């Protein structure tokens, strides 16, 4: 596999990751969100493997496998069980309507392209052009957390954001050291469990998973 072909495959995968990030923004059904998230994990893992192959860094294979296991199977499964157990309504409720969110998303993509321009000029890696996409994925994840009402969609937004960070790491510097990545993966897993526990707690306290209810926690004056 030549460098240029690898770069092309990588940019196609980057485009797909961006597409899934937008898909997360426009998806109305909660299971659809989970599927999209899992697909994003698949693309991320393939991309990591491709980068690992071209750069000859074998520890990236481990990251790829870890991503595949964790983000494609484990986390979606945990969330699926959560949704099922908590009997959450299957529709996602958004605070800002979807076309507007999408337009904001486009603006964020342009912004992150603009931000990463200096890095792109300096970098010599095969993956340099995908950095903008990685940053955009982070921002889109944040946007999703801001514009959605339900706690579950917030989690998915958070995980998508983490996907973006991971992708940024592979595209900017061919990945973080393995130890760091293992640590982050563990963190994510634990975060998912903690979120799960939180959900149960929130629901027993407020009888709802609407984050609006949390406003009641503030001190009355």
């Amino acid at each position, binding site marked *: 596999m030549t460098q240029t072909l690898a770069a092309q495959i990588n940019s196609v995968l980057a485009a797909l990751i961006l597409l899934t990030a937008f898909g997360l923004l426009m998806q109305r059904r909660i299971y659809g969100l989970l599927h999209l998230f899992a697909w994003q994990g698949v693309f991320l893992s393939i991309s990591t493997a491709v980068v690992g192959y071209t750069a000859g860094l074998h520890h990236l294979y481990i990251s790829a496998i870890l991503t595949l296991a964790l983000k494609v199977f484990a986390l979606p499964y945990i969330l699926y069980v959560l949704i099922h157990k908590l009997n959450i309504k299957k529709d996602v409720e958004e605070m800002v309507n979807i076309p507007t969110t999408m337009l904001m998303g486009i603006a964020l993509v*342009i912004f992150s*392209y*603009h931000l990463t321009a200096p890095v792109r000029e300096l970098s010599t890696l095969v993956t340099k052009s995908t950095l903008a996409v990685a940053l955009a994925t982070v921002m889109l994840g944040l946007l999703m957390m801001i514009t959605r009402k339900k706690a579950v969609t917030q989690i998915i937004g958070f995980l998508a954001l983490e996907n973006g960070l991971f992708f940024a790491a592979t595209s900017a510097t061919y990945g973080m050291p393995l130890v760091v990545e293992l640590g982050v993966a563990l963190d994510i897993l634990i975060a998912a469990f903690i979120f799960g526990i939180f959900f149960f707690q929130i629901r027993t306290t407020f009888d709802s998973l609407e984050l609006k209810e949390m406003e009641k926690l503030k001190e009355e004056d």
Partner: protein
Amino acid sequence: MTMTAPLAAAFFAVIIFLIMAGVAPFLASRQASLVRIAFLFSAAASVMAVYAGIAAVSAGSAETLIIPIGLPDLPFYLRVDALSGFFVAVVALLGLFVSIYSFGYVSGLAEGRPVTSLVVFYCLFMAGMLLVLLSGDAYFFMISWELMAVSSYFLVCFEDESVEARRAAFIYLLVAHVGAVMILLAFGILAGFAAGFENFGGFTFQAMRGAHLPPMWASIAFLLAFSGFAAKAGVIPLHVWLPEAHPAAPSSVSALMSGVMLKTAIYGMIRVTFDLLHAGAWWWGGLVLCLGLVSAVMGILYALLQVDLKRLLAYSSVENIGIILISLGLAMIFKSFSMNLLAALALVAALYHCLNHAMFKGLLFMGAGAILHSTHGKNMEGMGGLIHRMPQTAVIFLIGCLAISAMPPLNGFVSEWLAFQAFLLSPVLPGQLLRLLFPLGAALLALTAAMSARCFVKVYGVVFLGHWRGKQPCEAHEVGVSMRLGMGLAAVMCVGLGLFPTFVIGWMDPITKGLVGASIGSSAQAFGWMWLTPVASARASYSAPILFAGVMAVIAAAYYILHARSSAVRRADIWDCGFPKLTARMQYNSTSFAMPLRRIFGSLLLIRESVKPGDARRPLPFQERFTYHLRVMDRVWYSCYRPLSDAAFWVARHATRLQHGRIQIYLMYSFITLIVLLFFA
């Protein structure tokens, strides 16, 4: 000086207009002959000015004439070059058509009321517009600008018994003057840097052209001039006067105001930015482009929601000015990066759209006048089926609708196509952010074009097709020959400008050569006169004659084959779904046609919608009547102007406390002022 010189011809035309304005009051007792004589002479003057404009563009060189009247040391400079010649031709061409149209239209008005003031101010208005274009110094420019503004003010409040007309005219005058002050300040800066702030030497455009402004002052001058001209052109958010004033004026005047008066503002922008300031920083163009996009999209959205035909056309003018500004902004950006060829392309797109818009919007306003004349109503909700009553007007109006919707092979498409080409060539620009933003601009332009098609399907479908919706039976009739002739000539221009763009672009070469130092005329015709190839034939080509001939050939063939065997055509009632009591009120009307749009873009607009049952005591299912109420308000008016006017009233209310009516207190105010001034002096 021979009579063939363009400047002399144009000046002579202006003189004719001024003389007519002076003579008209003496003919006031004989209205019918007044109308005939005045518009005959104004048509003749327009022909002369059209000739002058065309000749000036072809000549390509500037011509100056100094008239030693006015203040001492401040003579009037008259000047015509390719740019002003182009606009003179545009103004006078539509002026000619409107003059012909006015024979019938103003005669119709004269049956109801004296039209002397209309004739006087019409002539002054035409003279004012031509003088704006011909003036070669800032002083004379401002005088002509005011002549144009004031005479159009009187035209807007021609029907002075209506409150709306007076209010519209007042808003118009206010915005026009705020704009004029900004233009004056911009000229002040330019003149100051040209010859020092102490003397008047810098007031000619010639002197300003040679001035060297520091970048900051150049930007300030540009911003002032641009906002001043934008107020006249009706760029959002300075457009609020436009949908008020254009419907209030008589339709022949609306045609001129919308078709060409707005173009004088575009002329001013081009004159100041390209000629006097030599197109400075790229963000000037970016600003113009962004405002153009906003105006285009919002203008057409508002247009779609209107039920008053002339208001709809006025909002559509906002949209078209937006399209012109988009191309103009692109030209400025290209110019600031010294890409002269592309700048020429974008500038040609802008100028071509000016010409096109003058033709089709003039045509549509004249058509609206014809409809008004024959149905006595502006509200589209009460119209329908006029194609049976006014068959020729219907055909002419259809050409206008097709042209404004950018349908090939008519003229609207040519200029939008050129604008798209300019957008698609933008990847050669150096700035990466710019390159990303440009495609989005192209998408908004596409949205505007598609929306305007939708808007004019609505107009045509509701006004001319279907059944008559009015409460009274329809009494509409075909309008007179002169009105049809005026509109018809504009329609012929729409077709001609659409079919033969290469000739027009070739003719426009001297303008771009003078302003941006490049021209696209030769490359546009490189492939032959039938193909318009703005850059290269491998890049893009468009041939209206072939498209037109192709479609016509297919239609003729299909018609011939299908009619070879004679088959009966039966007329029957429309399909009623088994519901026998269909009425004309069950047709889609203007409001229902635009309903999907209100749902989709409702959040951008300010819409109040309510359904009230007719009888409050009955439960809902047993109601017999419902009242549906819809109000579409201009968001800009409520978010920008309302607070301003409220603030003004607030200040005024508090200022009245100073007013006591006692002379001693007023003397005391003066005394205190004197003391304060002396203390600080």
